């Protein structure tokens, strides 16, 4: 078997396709590294400026009522140090979560709540649309194409030349031939890939601007493993088609068509079709429900206020109740909309898993800490933080014996100045174990694809007539 693998390897190493593939991989990885070194410091700087501004505004507040009324300012998503692995559609995903206050009556506003409004810079962008050259692009698109080009003629070509018959005339079992061919192709593609990846990482890690810690290296290791698995999958597919088909040209056309459908058709078209199945709340509907909610709350409040004309304490309590209730209801409504939108995307993303390209995109996104799953994690972090922040306000108020403990009204809350450093600060975190859990399904699916294709290739090759 090693003999066959060696022969394949020598064959490939001397071929034109090996040279072209190597040049292509190195060129792309070099571009990726250079661009990352240029753009990443800017991105990190922007993030730091933004959080410093938010923190400064937060620190400027010492009054508990102000803190409770206006909330924790803008919350920003932390850029991943592994941004060069994949961009993950960052231009269309919001990087900031806003807070809102809503008007209950003419001069009464709710406390802050998370409204998940988003603003994407893309609607002002007039530059041509392209895919960013990142690892995802190199692995998902280019590597799979290279895998096809290396295997489409591995069996049908030998059959055309008649060398297959010659080889099988020797006492070599067929599966050994298949495995040898597979290993030969795998080694001859993964060698330039590994070198290109190492060059890319070398350039990135040598620079002072970008620091990669131990966890980042672990993540990179997993991404590389995923890349190799994905490569195996396409090699197996190539072998499968090549052993079923009589002619080289037919094998190539079929493989290219499969490739195009996997890469282009399924991830986009199927996602569009799948997203048509659910209808999340539109913005207009949201506005309408929002306005109705607050006008109802306002009427209710006014009606109940009539009965407390002479009772200042109860008036205060009533106002406080509506201020907090209004915020909770507003947050629930916007959360409902967000959940519906996320569910729509989730569904579309699950459907696209029919394509290994989409699976690999999900996996790389998960481990690089970008993309949609990462965004959901960011939203969850923000929600946890919002809870913590509100608890802090409650605790501070309870700790003050002089306070009337009516949260929602200035007179009803503690007047003691708050130490700005004690206010909880938002910190966006990423955790590998969680990412691994969300990615486990994708990883399994990828392995399953590989097993199916490889056993298909084995069966096809064993039963084929030479």
């Amino acid at each position, binding site marked *: 078997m090693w003999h066959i693998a060696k022969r394949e390897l020598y064959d490939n190493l001397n071929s034109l396709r090996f040279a072209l593939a190597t040049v292509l991989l190195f060129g792309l990885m070099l571009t990726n590294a250079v661009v990352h070194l240029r753009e990443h410091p800017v991105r990190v700087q922007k993030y730091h400026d933004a959080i410093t501004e938010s923190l400064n505004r937060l620190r400027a507040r010492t009054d508990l009522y102000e803190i409770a009324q206006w909330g924790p300012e803008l919350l920003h998503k932390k850029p991943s140090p592994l941004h060069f692995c994949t961009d993950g559609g960052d231009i269309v995903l919001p990087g900031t979560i806003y807070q809102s206050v809503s008007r209950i009556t003419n001069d009464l506003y709710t406390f802050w709540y998370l409204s998940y409004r988003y603003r994407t810079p893309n609607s002002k962008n007039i*530059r041509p649309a392209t895919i960013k050259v990142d690892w995802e692009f190199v692995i998902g698109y280019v590597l799979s194409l290279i895998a096809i080009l290396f295997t489409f003629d591995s069996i049908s070509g030998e059959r055309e030349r008649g060398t297959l018959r010659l080889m099988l005339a020797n006492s070599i079992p067929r599966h050994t031939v298949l495995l040898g061919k597979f290993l030969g192709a795998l080694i001859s593609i993964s060698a330039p890939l590994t070198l290109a990846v190492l060059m890319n990482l070398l350039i990135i890690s040598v620079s002072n601007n970008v620091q990669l810690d131990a966890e980042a290296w672990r993540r990179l290791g997993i991404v590389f493993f995923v890349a190799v698995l994905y490569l195996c999958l396409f090699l197996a597919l190539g072998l499968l088609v090549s052993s079923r088909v009589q002619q080289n040209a037919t094998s190539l056309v079929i493989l290219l068509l499969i490739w195009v459908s996997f890469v282009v058709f399924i991830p986009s078209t199927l996602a569009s079709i799948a997203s048509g199945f659910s209808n999340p709340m539109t913005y207009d509907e949201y506005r309408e429900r929002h306005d109705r909610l607050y006008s109802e709350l306002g009427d209710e409040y006014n009606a109940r206020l009539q009965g407390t004309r002479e009772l200042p304490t109860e008036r205060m309590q009533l106002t406080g109740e509506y201020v907090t209730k209004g915020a909770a209801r507003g947050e629930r409504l916007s959360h409902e909309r967000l959940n519906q939108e996320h569910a729509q995307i989730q569904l579309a993303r699950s459907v696209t898993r029919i394509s290994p390209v989409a699976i690999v995109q999900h996996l790389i996104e998960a481990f690089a800490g970008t993309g949609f799953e990462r965004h959901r994690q960011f939203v969850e972090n923000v929600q946890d933080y919002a809870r913590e922040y509100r608890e802090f306000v409650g605790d501070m108020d309870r700790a003050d014996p002089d306070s009337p403990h009516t949260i929602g009204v200035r007179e009803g809350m503690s007047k003691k100045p708050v130490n700005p450093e004690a206010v909880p600060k938002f910190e966006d975190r990423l955790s590998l174990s969680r990412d691994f859990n969300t990615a486990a399904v994708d990883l399994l699916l990828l392995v399953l694809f590989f097993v199916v294709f490889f056993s298909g290739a084995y069966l096809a090759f064993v039963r084929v007539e030479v």
Partner: protein
Amino acid sequence: MLLTLIRRELLDNLMTFRFAAAILIMLLLVVANTAVLIKDYERRLEAYNTAVQKHRQDLLETKTYSAVGLTAYRPPNPLSIFNVGLDKRLGNTLRVSYLYVPTLWDAWKHGANNAYLNIFASIDIVFIFQGILSLLALVFAYDALAGERERGTLRLVLTHPVRRGHILFAKYISAMLCLLIPLLMCFLLVLIMLTTSASVFLGTDDFFRIGGVIFTSFVYLSLFYLIGMLISAATRRTGTALMLAMFAWGFLVLVYPNMILTAIETDPHTDTETSVYNQIKQIWEEFDRERKQFLANDPVPGEDWDFGLWGDDGYTFWGGTDDSSKLLYYESTGFHFETLKEESEPQVPHAQNYHRFFGLQVTNTADRTWIVRKPALEMIYVQPAKKEQMLLKFSPVGLYDSATEAWTGTDLSGLQDFFMAGQRYQQAVVDYFLDNKIFESRQWFVAAKGEIDWNMLPQFSFQRSDIGTNAKRALPDLFLLLILNLILFAIIFLIFVKSEV
């Protein structure tokens, strides 16, 4: 002889399994995507219609001139099904106000539902052709000459008294005929789906535009076929030819466009941005000073701009924007009353006098800021985009894309047509306000239900540019594609004539 050759080639190509498979996949892709795209278009059209209707209702319910919010809506382009370009991405709602001249960067989107959906790329018909048909053309071409040479049939053909040019020509014609079949079938299917859909209306001009798209696609295909043929003529073995052809495709279609745009650095123009923004801010501050001066000289003592008016349900408002990234800054203040108390009637002429001054000055200020803002926006946003477009044109894909965008009117110029219309409309509204002395009218700030005839206001209308303009925008790229075709054919001819069999 030529006919015999063509017939032979045609049969060779048509009767293959690969051809059938390719056509099948193409048709499947086109049908599925057209269905998705038509549905998407219908959704956008519905959102547009609702928005226009709602705007009309809101306008009729407006009670004062100062509270009027005029908005121009951009209808979705039905031809975006062919090449979506910027049609879906850019804003489609443009606020038209006397405070500033509206631009593309001030627009936003109505009916933009789930914004997260943008993480999925949208495919259009041109995108499918760009990728798959070019691949098919290369698959037809790579063994056209090298294959015959390898099998030795080329030598056989050349023993006949047939000219080499004829062989080349026959191969080219027959392959193009073969490629035309899937191309025309796809377009036919799309057209059938478009015309049977109830919501898509296509005019005569649109059919000519689609004709332009088809012709451009044909020229693009021919270019890829010639690239394949060039490789085939220059190499001895089919294996080498195939590899070169595939990598050429990968480079031209997949790698180059993405790599070049990732790699080039765009100048952020931060200095221009800040200086122009400050300039604009200064112009507004100057206006504010003059306004304050005017108020100080006002004979009504002790009052600021509400002139001591009293009324029911009155409110003052402040509007403004302060966005340095799109170089927009303005402020405006005003007030609105449902009814006015009898005793404040003597003050009304003062307020009117102020508003006469205000109207003249504010529109003047808007024009002055526009003089500064227009070239700056051009420099910061439009020029880098044009430069990138230029770089993309080094690949046939870029040429094809921008030519078809120009035909369908979804390119930057096509969309700018709408924003220009918005600017003209803004000018018309301002002129109407000034000519009819709206600013100084009582209805500027006191509600007058039924007194204002909103139908008198200029109406916004937008027509996509005529077919001549589309053609003018598409022709340079189309011409370049044609020239490239000719050059490649000439090179192939030279190589083939000189080559030994």
